[in-house]
């Protein structure tokens, strides 16, 4: 079994890569690229100052000036815990006047030949120090030797990238002068590395030095950490799924078993009609109906449920459990308040799933009921209830386990719709918002998470399959 799980885990890697690549290149092919900005009304590249600044920012942050496949490798490298450190090459794009000044300012640079331009020289110097496996002391010596003195370094950096915003330049200069002052101790080496990366007008990526590093999901378009956004949204989606999945199975098992026990009876027929109807009901419609009839103050029966969100505005002040007393008599408490908010979304997520699951359960119970061992058990006088629950029931659970893997992706699609309708800030809404904003890092992170969850749930299904059915073996 362990070998099997290991092999499956390894097979997941190419699949996951494929998923990520598909989503990435679909987004890369979109007009306007990340953020979709920088296009004017005719769809041409906007050339005014604001647009240029945004464009440069995107290039620095996401490497959008690179070809799509390099961007993809850059992203992969950034996310992967094992990968290459990224280095930067300062773009060589200076005018003649600049070059003359640069040459003058950098005359002290030992490594730079006379015909090299300033950008290349600084880049070389920084990389030289930061990217060799040298002790911090050696690196400091090298860099100091190359740049001559701190003042010439600062004046050199002044020309590193005139496209940097004032704030960035400030940080860059401060970081570098400080690193000089401190003699490039270990910590500052990282700072120089990062600064040299920032200094690059465009993020030309060179994959240097393999390393084990912290995976980094990047920043959203608005500059927040992607991990932050995910850690806000994920618990909400997990909560929804934790409520939905057991509910689906509970209803499905109960209705399925009872429908099968009296197959062809009134309950079987009526539940069959109801379930196929439920299955076909589009979530968008049901959600909208619920909002309009159960969560609208304009109906004669008043507003029975909240229109959206997960908590009331004053949920923070509420006690956890309901209690009597207080200002308005009965106080609902945090728990009831949450359940009250969750009721409609959970119903919306559940009904389609249990409609399918219940039919599957009915079919497999029917199959099991006609099996030989059931006839034998009946013949030897086992109580019908025992036959049903301990002989038939356990044997008919297999298809439901198989179904779990198809329920999970369906639930993901469900949460996209339900969370949008009921304005719940879970993963589904995050995905839709990210798609609308063309926020690449956020979308990739959602895809990564969704892909991993989906693949792992498939693996868990197969493992459960083997546990539930002794005949199934993967070895």
């Amino acid at each position, binding site marked *: 079994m362990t070998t099997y799980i290991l092999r499956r885990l390894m097979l997941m890697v190419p*699949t996951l890569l*494929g998923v990520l690549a598909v*989503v990435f290149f679909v987004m890369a092919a979109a*007009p306007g690229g990340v953020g979709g900005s920088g296009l004017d009304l005719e769809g041409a590249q906007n050339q005014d100052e604001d647009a240029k600044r945004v464009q440069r920012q995107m290039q620095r942050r996401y490497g959008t000036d690179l070809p799509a496949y390099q961007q993809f490798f850059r992203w992969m490298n950034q996310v992967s815990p094992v990968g290459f450190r990224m280095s930067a090459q300062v773009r060589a794009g200076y005018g003649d006047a600049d070059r003359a000044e640069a040459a003058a300012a950098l005359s002290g640079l030992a490594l730079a030949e006379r015909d090299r331009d300033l950008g290349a020289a600084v880049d070389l110097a920084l990389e030289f120090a930061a990217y060799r496996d040298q002790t911090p002391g050696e690196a400091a010596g090298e860099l100091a030797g190359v740049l001559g003195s701190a003042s010439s370094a600062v004046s050199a950096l002044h020309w590193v990238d005139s496209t940097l915003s004032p704030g960035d330049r400030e940080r860059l200069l401060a970081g570098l002068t400080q690193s000089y002052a401190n003699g490039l101790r270990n910590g500052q080496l990282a700072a120089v590395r990062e600064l040299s990366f920032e200094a690059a007008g465009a993020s030309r990526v060179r994959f240097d030095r393999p390393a084990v590093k912290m995976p980094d999901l990047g920043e959203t378009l608005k500059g927040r950490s992607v991990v932050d956004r995910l850690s806000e949204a994920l618990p909400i989606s997990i909560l929804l799924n934790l409520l939905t999945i057991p509910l689906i199975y509970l209803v499905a098992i109960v209705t399925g078993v009872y429908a099968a026990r009296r197959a062809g009876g009134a309950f079987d027929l009526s539940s069959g009609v109801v379930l196929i109807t439920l*299955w076909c009901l*589009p979530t968008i*419609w049901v959600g*909208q109906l619920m909002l309009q009839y159960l969560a609208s103050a304009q109906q004669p029966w008043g507003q029975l449920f909240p229109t959206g969100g997960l908590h009331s505005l004053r949920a923070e002040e509420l006690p956890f459990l309901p209690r009597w007393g207080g200002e308005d008599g009965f106080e609902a408490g945090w728990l009831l308040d949450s359940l009250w908010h969750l009721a409609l979304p959970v119903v919306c997520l559940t009904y389609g799933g249990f409609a399918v699951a219940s039919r599957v359960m009915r079919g497999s119970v029917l199959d099991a009921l006609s099996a030989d061992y059931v006839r034998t058990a009946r013949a030897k006088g086992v109580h019908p209830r025992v036959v049903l629950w301990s002989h038939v029931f356990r044997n008919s659970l297999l298809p439901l386990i198989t179904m779990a893997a198809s329920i999970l992706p369906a639930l993901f*699609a469900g949460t996209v719709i339900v969370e949008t309708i009921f304005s719940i800030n879970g993963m589904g809404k995050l995905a839709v918002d990210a798609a609308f904003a063309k926020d690449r890092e956020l979308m990739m992170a959602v895809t990564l998470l969704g892909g991993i969850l989906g693949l792992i749930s498939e693996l868990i299904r197969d493992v459960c399959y083997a546990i539930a059915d002794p005949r199934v073996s993967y070895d």
Partner: protein
Amino acid sequence: MTTTATQLGQADGGPDGSAPDSQTPNELREQKWLAAVGQRVLGQWGGRIGLVWVVLLSVIAVFAPFLASSHPLLMTKDGVTTSPLLEHLSAADVVLLVAFFAALLLWVVGLLRPVNAAFGGGSRAWVWVGVTLGAIVVCPLVMSPPPLTVLSQYREAEAAGELERVVFTVLPFSATDRQAERPTRDKSFRPPSARHPMGTTLSGADVMSRMIHATRVALAVGVIATGLSLVIGIAVGGMMGYFSGVVDLLGMRLVEVFSAIPVLFLLIIIVATRDERNIYLMMTVIGLLSWVGYALYIRAEFLKLRQADYVQAARAVGVSVPGILFRHLLPNGVTPVLVLASFGVASAILYESTLSFLGLGLVDEPSWGGLLNEARKAGTHWGLVWFPGLAIFLTVFALNLVGDALREALDPRSVK
């Protein structure tokens, strides 16, 4: 019903000697079998109801301009009688009409016994495909409908008494008719009334008219997207099943990748990141993303069939690979996929309406999901949540019923 399912599974099994007239035994058997399946589908209540609804929708879709249009059917002005409706028919309208009437004609022709004997069902289908494709090519070239007109001009002319005679369609509003002639130009929903049986949208377009014209979008997306995914699924699955080995291994990875991506999510990404949305993009994307089920099914069938005696025999005789694939494997392996395709149409329609509901649908084109989206706005009326919702539900329901009936009809175990 004399044909049994085991016979059905082997159309190439050899002549059974009972073939009359000019038809080859295979053709006859296929026809008999199709008729048997059709009868079995129609023999079930579910299939009957589902098919009636689908046919009704198709008729509505084909005749949409004649059911709801702001252009009058007939108009007499200054003694000259014209038909603005016919003048303003678009190429798509005409193609649909041609396809519809060609199908009707060929069906009627098929009922005549002598013609049927000489002119088999298969060739009639090809004639229909040819006529339709011809119409698709010719109509946009030949036709030049007048540029966009002011849709309210006819109503205004009628109100001013300039027209001697005017005959409107049953519902005298086009889907994009915003009825700007009204004195109050306030933006507001109007609830269902005698003038607007299903009310209006926020911008003043008639909901019923939009519902009617939206059947086109729904059916077109459903059918064409499913057709595309069928083609891809059959191609990929067939190659995997027939060649197995490395092709199978690579194909399975592809299948895994596409089944690990939530379709709706990728759809949203693709549609949201494109500035320009049109129905073709939507069809293509839905088609490109939902072929996995068909591929797996065909692969399993082909893996089974390639060991069958008649395939081995064909290979031994030296039939080429395309010959084996298209003449022997495909006709025998493809029918069960039709069941899946019927569910596929339903889910493609659901995808389209979900996208429109999320505000990612076609711009200005009517769509059921788009109408449901209107129901989210403030000041909406009950018609906007009930009618489009019911339409989506009934269509999905009908297609599922048809799919179920097809499955029953094709299931050898259910043959009595």
